[in-house]
């Protein structure tokens, strides 16, 4: 419903740039929500977002070269590939906690980047050009088509995160985040739930990356595996608030929009600086993000 309303409203906008920028913001909504399923709900900080994201993108490149299926198929495949890698990573690294887990995920992203850089079929370090059709069926403008896909995906990701939150799974993940030993003693199968979490989180990141080659039309490892994806997908939930589905959504829309505006009006190099400054400010002033800030206000007013 919400997805449909937003898309109908956005059709009134005739400027294609709106869709270019909107796509990026929505992409960050998916990434931030995906990151938060593992980072916020389960308490495992993943620095390897770029790895899962680029894996989705490069799965699309491979499929595009093989038989060029429609993008929704690519999204599903990207999700499956990144989900499998998420599962594998979870299985190998979930005995690590805290900093060690974070470093392992960063290492995974670097290993994947090295593999892709040395794989000629997908362009290697030279990168690869994807020629996309000028028009999409039914919708017309191709960028609007991509925008609609990403909007749908964002809707699905946020709805998934929201339904997890108050489900049995969500309570189990929260127990793991708070105290893994106590969670086990309360009957929570911690290893299995953590694997569900890494798989789901990885899958959504891969899905977010799958349409990327069609969006940028030229993809190279340096941009696909860009550190800014990892930084943003951590910063956005932290700034919005990590305990609920709304936090990453607010953080992504806010930060994503600020970055787009800054790119146009000031300079494109300023993006990460803005993210960094905001992140530091929030960690100091509002460690529970915008949601936490609002909740504390509300409580103070009531009591």
């Amino acid at each position, binding site marked *: 419903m919400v997805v449909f309303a937003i898309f109908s409203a956005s059709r009134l906008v005739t400027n294609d740039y709106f869709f270019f920028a909107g796509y990026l913001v929505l992409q960050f909504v998916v990434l931030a929500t995906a990151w938060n399923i593992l980072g916020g709900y389960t308490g495992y900080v993943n620095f390897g977002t770029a790895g899962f994201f680029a894996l989705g993108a490069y799965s699309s490149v491979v499929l595009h070269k093989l038989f060029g299926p429609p993008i929704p198929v690519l999204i599903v495949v990207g999700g499956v590939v990144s989900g499998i890698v998420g599962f594998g990573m979870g299985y190998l690294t979930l005995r690590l906690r805290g900093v060690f887990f974070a470093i392992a995920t960063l290492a995974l992203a670097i290993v994947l980047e090295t593999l892709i850089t040395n794989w000629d079929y997908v362009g290697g370090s030279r990168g690869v050009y994807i020629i996309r059709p000028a028009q999409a069926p039914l919708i017309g403008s191709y960028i609007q088509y991509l925008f609609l896909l990403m909007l749908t995906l964002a809707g699905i990701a946020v709805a998934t995160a929201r339904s997890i939150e108050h489900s049995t799974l969500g309570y189990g993940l929260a127990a793991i985040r708070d105290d893994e030993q106590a969670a*086990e003693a309360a009957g929570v199968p911690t290893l299995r739930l953590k694997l569900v979490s890494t798989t789901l989180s990885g899958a959504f990141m891969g899905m977010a990356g799958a349409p990327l080659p069609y969006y940028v039309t030229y993809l190279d490892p340096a941009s696909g595996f860009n550190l800014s994806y990892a930084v943003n997908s951590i910063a956005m939930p932290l700034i919005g608030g990590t305990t609920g589905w709304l936090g990453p959504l607010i953080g992504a829309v806010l930060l994503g929009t600020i970055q787009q505006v800054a790119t146009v009006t000031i300079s494109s190099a300023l993006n990460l600086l803005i993210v960094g400054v905001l992140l530091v400010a929030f960690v100091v002033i509002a460690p529970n993000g915008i949601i936490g800030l609002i909740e504390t206000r509300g409580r103070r007013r009531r009591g």
Partner: protein
Amino acid sequence: MTEPLLAVRSLGKRFGGFVALDSVDLEVRAGERVGLIGPNGSGKSTLVNCLSGTLRNDSGTVHFDGRILDGLPAHRRTRLGLARSFQLPKPFASLTVTENVRIPLLYTVNARPGARLGEAAIAERCAELLQLVGLAGKSGRRPRDLTQIEMRKLELARAMAAAPKLLIADEAMAGLSHSEIDDILTLLGRLIEQGITIILIEHIMRAVMSFSERLVVLVAGRKIADGMPQEVIRNPEVERAYLGE
């Protein structure tokens, strides 16, 4: 004679070269109130961890309710009916008191074969458990708002939510005042009335003596006494362990 609820046979655990548990045997019958004492570092907590699955024992076997537990992860043991509370309370800090109790309901009671509790039944059971331990007024609070004793009670309520057959209470009274200890003892009495077998691990002799029907003493990883509390504390070996030569 019926089979004991818990039967531990020659259980051993080493940490590197240090022998924490040296072939410990222990039997607990259903409905029994067993006290487990021992000086610091005697292996009490290691024994609890081996029984509950937090640690893996190196040798020996643990039989519980007709099953062999060796190799089962902790959450499976809780589902089978062996619950524990932690020496240092480990509440789920980001969840409310009610939600803390809710988790074992979702993951043990509802994970067992048979009827699943619905949303209303879960809420009712949570309220019941909090009533039982005297935390009904704190249901919406976070653990950080609780006092030391309330934290212990929450720990017990959470262990109880798993509907266990055997509860291992690991120093549920450490650091509490005289009247608070009586409070917890009353609470444990109520649990026993509900048909739960309890192993109480405790330093506070007054509490152990008034609780236990049977007293087990661990010293340096070995069981040195097991019997009627009054006889056990007169045992010269136990006296030596506690008071020196």
